[in-house]
């Protein structure tokens, strides 16, 4: 079995690189670092990392351009580190091919969880798991069966389709626009309230406390994430 543990960090801030090095190595990853976009792109092509942590505020190039350049030739998972907490820029990042983003300041446990999800997702890409299991939630995609808190849950067609799309990218943000277009058709892209209503229905059926969801997490203005 190949161990997917080589992470390339592209960040100009030496203290952040040090912090990441200590924490990532403690978690069993191998970290390679680059302080500039140029060095980062070179390393990405030569050392074959399994995941790239890309800081958006690089001195020699825009992070978004680096991301686009990477996406020209590789599908390595890219996690973006950004201070920008605006919705549109998050959507922009996902559109440009980022697998996920982490807003600075971030907690290390959160970052570690995102890294794990991104790496696992790549490993699973070939044959997506037919079953999603997380805590008290179990989704059997092939049999279209959902169980929550030990009980079988009856979902409507739309509810299941929505849940299925989230379960296909476990732990990753699935964008609102994608869900709307994929489920209700192209004309529905602006009808965000469809999604909010059905997410509400789903939460009532699968969450122990719908107002404190543990599975279907909202990323305001961006989309939803199934944990």
């Amino acid at each position: 079995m190949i161990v997917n543990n080589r992470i390339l960090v592209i960040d100009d801030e030496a203290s952040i690189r040090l912090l990441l090095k200590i924490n990532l190595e403690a978690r069993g990853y191998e970290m390679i670092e680059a302080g500039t976009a140029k060095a980062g792109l070179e390393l990405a092509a030569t050392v074959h990392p399994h995941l790239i942590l890309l800081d958006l505020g690089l001195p020699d190039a825009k992070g978004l351009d680096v991301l686009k350049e990477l996406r020209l030739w590789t599908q390595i998972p890219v996690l973006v580190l950004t201070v920008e907490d605006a919705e549109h820029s998050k959507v922009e990042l996902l559109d440009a091919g980022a697998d996920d983003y982490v807003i600075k300041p971030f907690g290390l446990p959160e970052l570690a969880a995102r890294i794990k999800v991104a790496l696992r997702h790549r490993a699973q890409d070939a044959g997506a798991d037919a079953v999603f299991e997380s805590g008290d939630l179990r989704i059997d995609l092939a049999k279209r069966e959902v169980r929550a808190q030990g009980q079988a849950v009856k979902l409507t067609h739309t509810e299941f389709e929505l849940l299925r799309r989230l379960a296909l990218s476990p732990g990753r943000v699935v964008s609102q626009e994608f869900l709307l277009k994929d489920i209700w058709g192209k004309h529905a892209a602006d009808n965000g309230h469809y999604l909010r209503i059905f997410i509400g229905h789903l939460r009532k059926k699968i969450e122990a406390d719908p107002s404190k969801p543990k599975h279907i997490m909202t990323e305001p203005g961006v989309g939803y994430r199934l944990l």
Partner: protein
Amino acid sequence: MNTEESPFFSGAVRYWWSFCLITGISVVGFALSDTLGYRTIGFLFLTGVFAVGSFNTVGPVLFAAGLSALVWNFVFIPPRFTFAISATEDLLLCVGYFLAAVVTGALTSRSRQHEQRAREREERAQFLYEILKDILEFSRPKDFLSRIAIRIEEHCGGECVFVLNDENPPARSAEYQVFGVRGRKEQTARMFFKGWLGADQRELLELVCQQIGLTLERTHLERRLRDTERLEESERLHQTLFNSVSHELRTPLTALMGFASALEDESASSPEFRSKITAGLQDAAGRMNRVIGNLLDMSRLSSNAMVLKKEWHDPSDLIGVTLNALNSPRQITARVPAELPLVEMDFRLMEIALANLLVNALNYSDAPVEIEVLAGDASLRFAVRDEGTGISEKYLARIFEKFYRVPGTPTGGTGLGLSIVKNIVDLHRGEVSVANRPRRGAEFVITLPLGQPPALPEENDRE
């Protein structure tokens, strides 16, 4: 158009016209003198004098009256071709004719002049009215000035340019007449006019310039006042930023540095001590993050570029996201009804508002905090309650003011949190209120109006 200044009717030309008319009548009268009596011809002359009167001032009328009296006497009144008059009655007639011609001609001329003045006044009033309308319609001076310049060109004929104080005059400015555009105190612009102007038009343009001058002065004063206010506010914001950086950020920073060096200490290696240190580090870092967040939110809200992104959202989702992002180790009870209507709001801003209320409640007491959502017929309420000491009644009224901090409260805030809440709720046309609870603690309530949510797609294929 103003006929008095028009060259067609000016000066000697008027007399020339009167002369021609009387001569014409004489020729016609002479031709008809066999069939018409000389008295009838007198009436023809009188009509001619009236005609002159209705186009002219007093001078040409007198001239026409005198000339026609002489011609009538010389050519038509017997004995003809002499100035002598044989019959006494004809003499009286001729004198009477002259007087009647002068008086009626002069009267006609005067009433015509009255009429003309009235028309001119009306035109002027209309012109000024249009200009006032332009001033009101366009808020930017550059816009209404160019519009007014066009109006003046149409009205007076010629070329008109307004030049503000900080602008360059038109090329070859020596060919222009210059009018100062001034208000009560200062000249704000100049008007350059190339073309012929009568005294009335000049007076009118001076009036227009005066009006524009007053308007420009007023907008300048208003802008200066606004700038001053904004400057004062931004100075206060800077002062707060400065205070925040020096105090609110340095305090947690001191804690961070202290805890970091404590980690180096050998004696700090016990697990119990280490967990205290990490808790302290996280607490201090969280505090710094909050202060920075508040300052950023406030500067974003006070910039005019702020655009509200209102969409229909699930209030319980808002509670979930807010509590999740807050990630407080303290117990926060959420009472959220299962069925809630969608509310039109900017999700991110409302998240900030609720988080600020919750952080506030958590900061000012160690007791449990709860948040409750209550749906009414026309509004939705978010109530945040704590069981702290409450807020002294005399401070309640000022609590949402920017930079206001209740005296004697613990440090760690910028005095911005609640004013951010108010700002956001105002943007949503909602209300935020605060009251002390009957037994203990305070309650903050955000009320948002409920609208008519958009329709949902049909879903009939159940599985």
